[in-house]
């Protein structure tokens, strides 16, 4: 029962990366000196996250973190996001957010070339949600909040 083989059929969605980040989310804390923050709200399932960004002198994202509770998918996605957007400009982060959304919805990402290619490789496990339409928003919630924070909006909803 404990062998990985017993759960083979679950691995399409719950790959090890997702389980790991879901169990031990990185940067899961409030940033006291955040320049930007935004809440993300998924009214359908009750998931809530808040994303914090500290911007560097060069305008790039120097540090990203998040707070909130939710399912393994939403925690893993938020956790990976905080790692992947650090060091990026707002435009690069937005490009990544849009590529992630495409991946989550369709399981494919034709635009995942060039600058975002490497980051998208790490996010690829989240493509599994495309088989579960009701779970797509779990994967995209933190990224909506990221975009709202970058736009200075303070609040995002997946509806």
């Amino acid at each position, binding site marked *: 029962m404990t062998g990985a083989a017993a759960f083979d059929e679950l691995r399409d969605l719950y790959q090890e990366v997702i389980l790991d980040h879901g169990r031990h989310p990185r940067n899961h804390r409030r940033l006291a000196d955040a320049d930007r923050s935004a809440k993300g709200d998924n009214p359908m399932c009750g*998931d809530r996250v808040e994303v914090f960004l500290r911007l560097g002198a060069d305008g790039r994202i120097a540090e990203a973190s998040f707070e909130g509770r939710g399912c393994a998918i939403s925690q893993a996605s938020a956790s990976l996001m905080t790692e992947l957007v650090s060091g990026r400009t707002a435009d690069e982060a937005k490009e990544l957010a849009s590529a992630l959304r495409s991946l989550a919805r369709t399981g494919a990402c034709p635009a995942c070339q060039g600058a975002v290619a490497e980051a998208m490789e790490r996010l690829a496990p989240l493509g599994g949600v495309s088989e579960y339409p009701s*779970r797509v928003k779990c994967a995209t919630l933190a990224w909506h909040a990221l975009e709202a924070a970058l736009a200075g909006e303070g609040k995002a909803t997946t509806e």
Partner: protein
Amino acid sequence: MNDARILDRPAALDVAAIRAQFPILREQVRGKPLVFLDSAASAQKPRAVIEAMVHAMEHQYANIHRGLHWMSERTTEAYEAARDAAQALLGAKEREEIVFVRNTTEGINLLAHSYGRAVLKPGDAVLISAMEHHSNIVPWQMLRDSHGIELRIAPVTDAGELDMEAFATLLDDGRVKLVAITHMSNVLGTYTPVERIVALAHEAGAKVMLDGSQAVVHRKVDVQALGCDFYVFTGHKLYGPTGIGVLWGRRELLEAMPPFLGGGDMISTVSFERSEWAKVPHKFEAGTPAILEGVGLKAAIDWTVALGWDRVAAHEQALTDHALARLSEIEGVRVLGQAQDRGGVVSFTLDGVHAHDVATILDRQGIAVRAGQHCAEPLMRRFGLDSTARASFAAYTTMAEIDYLAEQLARVRAFFR
């Protein structure tokens, strides 16, 4: 275990025969046989309902109450037969007390809009409970904000029962004019003590509306014996089609209420200066109704009643006992609500695993459960939870399905450990 109790009863439900009447139960999902444990959200449909609706479309259909022709007259009869069936189902005194609506939500909105504005006065209070479905919260909030009524909330105990002491206290000042409360919680499975609620409310000068969305599926309801004033339910949870539900009200109360929607069918005369309303229930049934759904609802009521309420109750009690026993064997499972009087709805959490992940993994094994807040966000907050998973049972649910649920839940736990 409890199986013995079912098998021992001479009059037990023949679940295999029942399942054979539900074509959808032969479906596979994600390569596994469907194990449908989400009947509290909406029940599957027996062949009798499907065939009644198909038969109407193939052989007997026209608009109703309007045509003078044969087809219209026959269709009107078929549709109105649903009113008789609903009257009998609820034990209502008169067939005219049955108002067809789209669903429970529309029934409660009708009541809030019409009774709420015409009979309740600013400063009057409406008393609901902390375990209501959003459909029995939001319409009253809207009435509060537009009409100046007060909205009071009777608390729920840790066991998931209505706190009757607090309930009585909230009635004390005599300002509550309507108690609107669920007959059975869609999250906790709790049945509310309706007889006492009605006695206390009436003594305090308040009318009582019961949300019977869940209860009507599992128990014989007799509105006259219960003594309530309004009763609402939705057809799709009672093995019937979507798009039709019932608001029952005592005739004198319905007669004192203004219409909700205006249009065809709800008037007796119309001129550009003024119109006169039709009699109840038609006053509340503007426009072409859900004709085919009415036909389907009648078939669903007939089908359910024919099962026998005693047998349905015994079956569901056995399923619930078995589910509670099996779930309690799994480390980390916590069941929400331990009411004395409860029905076949079991909400639970699994330590360290979010309810959405539980639901998705069960889904992967062919098991349909609901996960989330179950349209009862305030109740979730009351118990300090973001979400739960919920398994709910119907006449077609088997003990083996519950065993399968328990086995797969144990796997979910192992997977996330």
